[in-house]
């Protein structure tokens, strides 16, 4: 993959009409992830660059939302930082349109609509929904077990902005006239490279899914995160979905 387009800090300040103070403050509050700050030597000395699309989109969103929310709450809403204890009523989850309804039903058979699921469960559902079109049932199950099983412990913290990707892979093995296809699920930070015989069926950018879920859930009257959201904010958040920075991701939109 080509390197993302970068923008210098100076240009960001000028373009977005913000000050050094604001930029540093937002960084401190965790609104702008550390990994986006890319230091480069230029002829004028050290300069900081950012992934252009991501930073402009993020700052635009911060500017839109900062008047209604205290900065500290904003981090919860905007970034992929997640309060693991946050629970979501199942009924609310059903209203988030892009989650697969069949999936919701099969995964939560034993629960009433008023029951709560954890944000992590909601996230897993989100990931599975994205795979729904391309993955086979047993693969969906494999992904589910990867995320919820023992090996998935502590994953919520790791779904940071470092670009944790979930890969669904297939490989055909043939020997002695018998051929079999095996499915694999892998989680890797950044962009993983696989051997040429592996078919990458789907790549899911986990932070994007998490953020999407959170924004969709934060939106509306029964906000569980404490911050009330205005209708104007919905548009602001919807604009960032998918993110232009992830051109490779296949969109599985309703």
């Amino acid at each position: 993959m080509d390197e993302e387009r970068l923008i210098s800090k100076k240009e960001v300040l000028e373009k977005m009409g913000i000050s050094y103070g604001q930029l540093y403050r937002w960084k401190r509050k965790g609104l702008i992830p550390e990994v986006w700050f890319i230091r480069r030597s230029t002829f004028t000395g050290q300069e900081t660059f950012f992934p252009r699309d991501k930073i402009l989109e993020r700052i635009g969103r911060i500017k839109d939302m900062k008047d209604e929310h205290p900065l500290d709450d904003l981090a919860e809403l905007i970034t992929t930082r997640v309060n693991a204890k946050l629970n979501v009523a199942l009924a609310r989850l059903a209203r988030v349109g892009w989650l697969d309804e069949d999936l919701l039903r099969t995964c939560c058979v034993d629960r009433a609509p008023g029951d709560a699921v954890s944000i992590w469960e909601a996230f897993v559902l989100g990931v599975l929904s994205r795979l729904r079109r391309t993955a086979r049932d047993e693969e969906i199950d494999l992904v589910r077990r990867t995320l919820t099983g023992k090996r998935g412990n502590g994953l919520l913290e790791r779904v940071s902005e470092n670009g944790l990707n979930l890969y669904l892979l297939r490989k055909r093995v043939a020997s002695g006239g018998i051929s079999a296809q095996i499915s694999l699920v892998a989680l890797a930070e950044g962009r993983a490279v696989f051997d040429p015989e592996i078919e990458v069926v789907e790549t899911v950018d986990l932070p994007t899914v998490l953020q999407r879920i959170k924004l969709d859930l934060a939106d509306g009257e029964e906000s569980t995160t404490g911050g009330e959201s205005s209708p104007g904010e919905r548009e602001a958040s919807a604009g960032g979905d998918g993110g232009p920075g992830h051109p490779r991701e296949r969109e599985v939109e309703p």
Partner: protein
Amino acid sequence: MNDERRSVSISGSGSLGGGEYARVVISGSGRVDGELVAEELRISGSGKISGRTEIGQISVSGSGVFGDEVIAEEMRISGSARVDGPVQAKELKCSGSFRAGGDISGDYVKISGSLRVSGDVEADIFKASGGFGIDGLLSADKVEIHLGGRCSAREVGGEKICVERIGSLGGALLSGLVKMFTGGGAAELRTTQVEGDEIHLECTVADVVRGKRVEIGPGCRIASVEYTETLKVHDDATVERQQKV
């Protein structure tokens, strides 16, 4: 939570299992094995906490060693303290010597002794009158440094950044005191870059200074200054390159 958290005091030599306490006082030599959650921790002798700590008020006037992360509302160090993990304190005041192995973040950080940090220091307000060495970024809305010794940070960034020599009066005494901690050295700030909206610098050595309104005072050696509104350079300062952007 139950309201009957115990208070413990170690005044001879002893150790304590981790857990939740109301108040832990170590005035002799004490050790806490494991994680410590308490409303208050006072170390006036020598104390060591091996696990992470989550405490309302920490005061160290002897010597304190924290083996892991420290989260506190208020942390005051007048003796010496070392934290091997990150520090998150709403208010951090250090008049002794403080070493942190990770990042320090807080609302208000005030250093009048010596500070050594392997990571970043991030605060709303950062005030220093002693010496410090920060391997990472020093960032605050308001950075106020009264040079009392050798100060260094990889980068400094914020809204208002002010670096000044300590005035001659009380300064001599204070800088003498500080030198005891920091081992002397010229009172100056060394950094690769300073970025802020309002910048006033004295005795600062930097590669780049970027800001809106910039004042380069006496004793500065700056390779390059980029400013958007105003720039003032003192006669006793060296600025190799300046550019209005």
